[in-house]
């Protein structure tokens, strides 16, 4: 039986602001002792009140604009009421019916909304003096959290992964978050269900997916699992499942039959937020050139292949470095294409070199005397003599071992040999020997 796959994503991203969402506490808590970045507001003490961080709102709108969302000129915060020990107020300040951003499109996926909320504290379950205890660290409490929700438009794991990769790239371009899944600054939830033609009346939520690879694997596993259930004429259970990397399968975490009742209502401590066209326009103007645009420009302006342009625009830093060197290259009469090839093939560490130095090195390389002809033959002869075992292996068919010999030649020649030339000569000599 054929089934249609419906996958929607919920992505939480911690925003890179200096202060927390509703107080003045710093956000650089990673690696610090528990409960060192706290105040009455993020501890939810009696009497404490939230004051929204304008910067976080701006960053949210930037992301919304990059995802082609409509920006609400009138939005508000709401209280999402539920109990959990990591939620000190007994409610999370979030956005319900008037998020900052809605109805967007990114790649071929419709974006339902992008809204702002506060992160919760972190629980640690451990044994202390022989007793099982749960400790709460409020350093994370109140960190601005952007939630992006997509429509169930995604059809397979590959598309999901591609979407997430591009989304992460865009968010990093905007410099609003580092999207570090290990540090928890990006968290993913996948909603997945299978139906004959339209969205079925159940969904499975996949949680605690700590990498894009896990997302991919968990989706593939779920599609298979749900299909088998459906083929038996049954309906998969509506539940939350996690990914077990050891056993390579998803497992049930929590069964929820009905949606939880969060008793949303407008947050009375924060007046509604009005943004006029001008303000929204100003934020739009502050957006940097985004990856897709940049890629298109690179292919045109520098005559790069689509593939090379993607590699060079993978992150803003690389793109900027490339453009820095490209403008210098023009002055020095070096072909930009060549710069691109070197950057891509030699895996240059751009953090350790300036565009100027990089260009100087290329110029030096160009003028360096190259060892050729008789002198090269001499070196090759020596290398072959010293590595007869390797030569035998190559003759037996282990072609790859030739690279070892190329390396030896380069070493003998102190790098002043064209490796392609060396490889070619080595092959000839081994063949004729």
């Amino acid at each position: 039986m054929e089934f249609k796959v419906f996958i929607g994503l919920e992505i939480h991203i911690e925003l890179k602001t200096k202060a927390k969402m509703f107080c003045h506490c710093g956000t650089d808590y990673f690696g610090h002792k528990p409960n060192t970045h706290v105040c009455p507001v993020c501890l939810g003490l009696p009497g404490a009140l939230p004051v929204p961080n304008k910067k976080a709102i701006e960053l949210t709108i930037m992301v919304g604009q990059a995802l082609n969302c409509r920006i609400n000129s009138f939005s508000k915060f709401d209280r999402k009421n539920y109990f959990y020990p990591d939620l000190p107020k007994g409610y999370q300040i979030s956005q319900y019916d008037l998020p900052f951003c809605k109805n967007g499109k990114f790649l071929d996926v419709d974006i339902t909304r992008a809204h702002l909320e506060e992160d919760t504290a972190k629980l640690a379950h451990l044994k202390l003096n022989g007793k099982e205890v749960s400790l709460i660290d409020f350093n994370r409490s109140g960190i601005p959290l952007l939630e992006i929700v997509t429509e169930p438009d995604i059809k397979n794991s590959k598309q999901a992964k591609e979407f997430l990769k591009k989304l992460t790239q865009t968010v990093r371009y905007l410099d609003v978050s580092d999207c570090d899944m290990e540090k928890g600054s990006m968290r993913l939830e996948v909603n997945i269900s299978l139906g004959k033609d339209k969205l079925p009346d159940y969904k499975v939520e996949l949680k605690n997916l700590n990498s894009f690879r896990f997302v991919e694997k968990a989706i593939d596993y779920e599609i298979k699992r749900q299909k088998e259930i459906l083929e038996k004429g049954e309906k998969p259970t509506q539940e939350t499942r996690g990914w077990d990397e050891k056993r390579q399968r998803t497992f049930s975490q929590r069964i929820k039959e009905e949606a939880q009742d969060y008793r949303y209502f407008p947050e009375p401590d924060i007046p509604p937020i009005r943004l006029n066209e001008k303000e929204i326009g100003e934020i739009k103007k502050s957006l940097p050139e985004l990856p897709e645009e940049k890629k298109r420009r690179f292919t045109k302006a520098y005559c790069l292949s689509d593939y090379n342009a993607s590699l060079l625009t993978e992150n803003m830093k690389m793109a900027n470095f490339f453009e820095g060197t490209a403008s210098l290259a023009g002055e020095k009469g070096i072909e930009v294409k060549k710069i691109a090839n070197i950057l891509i093939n030699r895996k240059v560490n751009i953090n350790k070199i300036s565009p100027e130095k990089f260009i100087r090195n290329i110029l030096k390389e160009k003028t360096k005397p190259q060892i050729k002809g008789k002198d090269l033959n001499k070196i090759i002869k020596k290398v072959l003599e010293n590595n007869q075992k390797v030569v035998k292996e190559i003759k037996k068919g282990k072609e790859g071992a030739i690279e070892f010999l190329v390396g030896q030649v380069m070493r003998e020649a102190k790098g002043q040999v064209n490796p392609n030339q060396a490889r070619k000569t080595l092959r000839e000599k081994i063949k004729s020997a």
Partner: protein
Amino acid sequence: MNIDQLTIIKAQGGLKKKEFSSLELVEGYLKNIKKKNPQLNAFITLCEKKALLEAKKADKLISQGVKKSLLGIPMAFKDNFLTKGIKTTAASRVLQNYIPVYDATVVDKLKKAGVIILGKTNMDAWAHGSSGEASDFEVTRNPYDRNKVPGGSSSGSATAVASGMTLAATGTDTGGSIRQPASFCNVVGLKPTYGRVSRYGIIAMASSLDAIGHLTKTVADSALLLGIMAGQDKFDATTSPSPVGDYLKNIKKSVKNIKIGVPKEYFREGLEQNVKSKIKAALKEFEKLGVKVEEVSLPHTEYALAVYYIIQPAEVSSNLARYDGIRYGLGRKMFAGEAKRRIMLGTFTLSSGYWEAYYLKAMKARTLIKEDFDKVFKKVDALITPVSPTLPFKIGEKTADPLKMYLSDIYTVTANLAGIPGISIPAGFVNNLPVGMQILGPHFSEDLLFRLAYHYEQKTEFYKKNTNLIN
């Protein structure tokens, strides 16, 4: 120094002229507290040692010529104002040992102005109540008749000011909790415009309705305190940037030709005849002052109490969620009946399936009530109404019937729903029990309310007629 006739302004003068020291003043009030509080139960916590120490410090500063508007003036704080290092309970067992780590913005402002904290006053737990009977630390009694309630929820503050146990006290007013006890105890109670005074550091009841104010003997004292307490606070996003007026300076400005509206909906069935006649008499006094009085209508008044008892418990249910037993030692089991009732009511009206029928509808009706006021204030400058439909009632009279108790707020909840300011001032006595009158005005019209109240007070001086007080 006659403590029973002292006001903040008189005390300021006395300190200035060295008629008495701050230490004598504080000692005088502590003596009064020791004498009267055992019968009246207006205080939950007394800060005797600290107050005496602060008074000595204040005297030293005064002798050094330091000028601060309230230097050496003792005050009491309702026990839902967080006071750093001083137990703050909101009169609930849940917080019976809670010692805050920070001061409310208003506490901080008053301290900086030189105020000395005498203690924390009793109240209905979490400010839920109109009689003081819902305190988890026993009922406060009305100083004019110990068998009667002092009103609530700022029960301790009203009793303490009325009986000379403090010069002034702070209060919170979510549906009448400053104005109603003020009227039951013959003192002046101000509920400022929503957003005029910071709520930061005050244990929230219903955040969209809570107003922070105070209870004083006179209108001038009230004006003086508002000038210090009001203003935008970077810790409260709902405070207004509109400038704080010099309320005291303008207080004597004539009120001639000011137009006062008398909303007919506030004088219907349910209003006790003897209360009504006191308000009518007060209106006559205003006319003698050259004020123009006319009848007006606020047609949606009849929905106000219902709207209030949907929105308020909804916010209460959310605001009390943090007292879950994880952080403050004592858990939900310690909530008493009234808090439980409001938590359940609010949770119900916010639940999916009921939200539209209750909460959403109430929010719409709230808008209509606001619009009523907007319209009427195009015609008149201020409104005069009763504060409470009844005289102070007997302790225990309404505790068995929450709905009857809720009706006590019928004339006061409208100001909270609309966010407008209101002041309750003494309007005379019936059977030796005080009756209060309420003056309401447009947003940020505190200036006008003080002027009207002051001129009336100067003519009547009911605050001086406290001879019925127990000794």
